[in-house]
């Protein structure tokens, strides 16, 4: 949502700034602390919570990227996993299979390669109409997977292992000996409902090892925040409006001066960029990639995450993506029935919350209208330049 929020009158904006900043800060700190808290009920009892959180963060990144394509620009992409794979494989190729560049050097290469693959796929196919795009992209995702499976250079079905972790801070010695961390953060343990500090379990700050996923989670969460801020900024700008207009009526948008093809391509490229980023992070955490990790079903899961959350609403999409990872891990006891229940849940959500868990700006805009009316009565003025700074919800 762009205009409605950015023009939302000061009536609400007048709520003094500091408390809001504080709330946001507390939320951010809470999310960073999550893997240390071992909260009862919320934490996954049967799988390492920090690891699950990392996967959730990765899916959130993916979903935010896909939301640009599906939610904003209205292009149904059923092969998004392809970009995820391109990001992951670029890292695998350059750090392990055919090179030994450090992760931080490869990361930007990986996202650019993913973005280029988005442009290469988009340039010819975005002229294809509407739903035809769905199957073309689906094909693209499959081609990427099959190419990885059948090409020995890409590691074949066996995949690529020994992908290095991101550099720890301070760096480990060249021979692999682990140096002392800057500091260690103790975890919390629970005795019933009473928390206490657990001196035995500590996370070594910014030390990327195989045992503790928390540093990886922090890295992914930081990326989530960066992507999120970029998303807010772009969506609230002319670019966001152009996407929305293109989605609504391509011809009319064109005649209103929107170069629709370029904007669609831009959405594709940006989606691919973010997808590649997620893939790169995934590869370095997993230290191993193989084509099975990029199956068609994953693309479908991604689309489900976006739509179930509420396409076009970034918060909804975040919730959707988190649930898609979290629920099956939290409810491992359903074992065999997980997929069945997941399918039923998708169906029920679609039927009972067709707008998604958090609907896109729509209904909220209606509320914004009411606020506007109140504001008009009060005679308060809108100051666009000021109001736009605050991110919209």
């Amino acid at each position, binding site marked *: 949502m762009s205009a409605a929020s950015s023009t939302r009158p000061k009536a609400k904006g007048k709520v003094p700034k500091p408390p809001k900043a504080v709330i946001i800060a507390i939320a951010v700190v809470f999310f960073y602390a999550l893997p240390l808290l071992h909260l009862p009920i919320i934490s996954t*009892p*049967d*799988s*390492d*919570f*920090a*690891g*699950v959180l*990392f*996967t959730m963060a990765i899916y959130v990144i993916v979903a935010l990227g896909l939301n640009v394509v599906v939610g904003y620009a209205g292009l149904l992409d059923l092969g998004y996993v392809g970009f995820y794979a391109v990001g992951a494989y670029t890292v695998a190729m350059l750090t392990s299979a055919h090179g030994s560049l450090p992760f931080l050097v490869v990361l930007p290469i990986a996202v650019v390669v993913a973005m280029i693959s988005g442009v290469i796929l988009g340039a010819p196919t975005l002229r294809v109409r509407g739903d035809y795009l769905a199957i073309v992209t689906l094909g693209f995702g499959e081609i990427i997977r*099959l190419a990885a*499976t*059948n090409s020995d250079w890409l590691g*074949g*079905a*066996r*995949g690529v*292992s*020994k992908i290095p972790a991101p550099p720890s801070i301070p760096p480990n010695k060249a021979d692999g000996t682990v140096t002392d961390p800057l500091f260690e953060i103790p975890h919390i343990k629970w005795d019933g409902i009473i928390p206490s500090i657990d001196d035995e*379990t500590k996370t070594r700050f910014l030390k990327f*090892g*195989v*045992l*503790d*996923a928390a540093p990886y989670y922090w890295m992914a969460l930081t990326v989530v925040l960066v992507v999120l801020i970029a998303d807010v900024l772009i969506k609230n700008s002319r670019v966001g409006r152009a996407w929305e207009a293109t989605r609504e009526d391509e011809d009319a948008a064109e005649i209103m001066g929107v170069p629709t093809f370029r904007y669609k391509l831009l959405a594709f490229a940006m989606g691919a960029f973010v997808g590649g980023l997620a893939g790169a992070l*995934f590869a370095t*955490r*997993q*230290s*191993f990639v*193989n084509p*099975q*990790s990029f199956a068609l079903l994953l693309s479908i899961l991604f689309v489900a995450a976006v739509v179930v959350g509420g396409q076009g609403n970034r918060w909804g999409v975040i919730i959707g993506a988190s649930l898609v990872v979290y629920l099956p*891990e939290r409810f*491992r*006891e359903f*074992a*065999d029935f*997980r997929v069945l229940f997941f399918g039923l849940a998708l169906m029920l959500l679609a039927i009972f919350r067709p707008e998604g868990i958090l609907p896109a700006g729509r209904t909220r805009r209606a509320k914004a209208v009411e606020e506007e009316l109140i504001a008009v009565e009060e005679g308060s003025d809108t100051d666009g330049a000021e109001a736009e700074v605050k991110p919209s919800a």
Partner: protein
Amino acid sequence: GSDDKDTASSGSDTSSSAECKPATIAFFGPKTGDAANLGLNIVGGVKVAVDKFNAEHPDCKVTTKDFDSQGDPEKATPLAAQVINDKSIIGVVGPTFSGESDATGPAFAEAGLVTVSSSATNPDLTTNGWKTFHRILGNDATQSPAAAKYIKDNLKSKKAFVVDDASEYGKGIADGVAKDLGDLVVGTDTVQVKQTDFGPTVTKIKASGADALWYGGYYAEAGLLAKQLRAAGWKGYFVSGDGSNDPGFVEAAGKAAAKDARLTCPCGAATPEFTADYEKANPGKKPGTYSAEGFDAATILLDGIGEGKSTRSDLLDYVNAYDKPGLTKQLKFDDKGEVAEVVIYAFKVDDAGEIVLDTEIK
């Protein structure tokens, strides 16, 4: 979930048997999802071993915890951390597949938690320098020469065709077979997992005039390929590896088409006693591929516990030094974690559609 299969004795049980302490071992592999079958076979074998152990050691009972990875490396990673963080676990049977072994190997190695796989056969797994990794069966690199030898010597093939399913397992083993068959190979082809129509492949095989076919892959596709080959009138030997060594092969191919197919396996046939024990421990189930290996893998860990190894490092050392006859073979590991003695058997499908032992490939 981590369902406790047996009633664990309360942790504070300080029994007089000073040596043996109650302990927990984990099974790590698929219990649900596409690959569940193989995992469940192993779980069944583990259960036989644990039941036997607990009957013999009433005062130091062993608990098992199952960790369902669905055979998916992505899911396996956090799950491995969970296993490692569970300080009660001192040994692992698994991981089941090579992919998940690849993804979790570094973590187990760093934690010093011993793993004994009864089914991951990717040869590269033992080259990573993980001290904790063990497997109790021949890897693909040992199975393929045996298979090639069988095709050459036992089946007396003059022209052989090699097909793989592009999977990690299937391609690895088929490449090995093709290499060892050398000049005998008149053609190769690659199909896909879950493919059901093999028209062009059948045409190629027929056209090549091959009298034997090696298929590297799993039973679902193997069965269909065998069936479509027979329907098209191909008369040669259908030979495949442990991935196809399952009654599902016969089900998919139909008895007529499956008849006389040859299946190699680094696994032994279940002995009648084991079958009986298995059916007792797992009512209504029959042992399958790698059930016996699951039993052996668990037995190694259990023997250690029985001898009073109660920490991860003790048990790791114990396993590294282990040398006893098992159900399937002499169980002893080299310094990389490969089982020292590899035995490969050939099975065949008889007229009744049963998979019966043909011969040991020497």
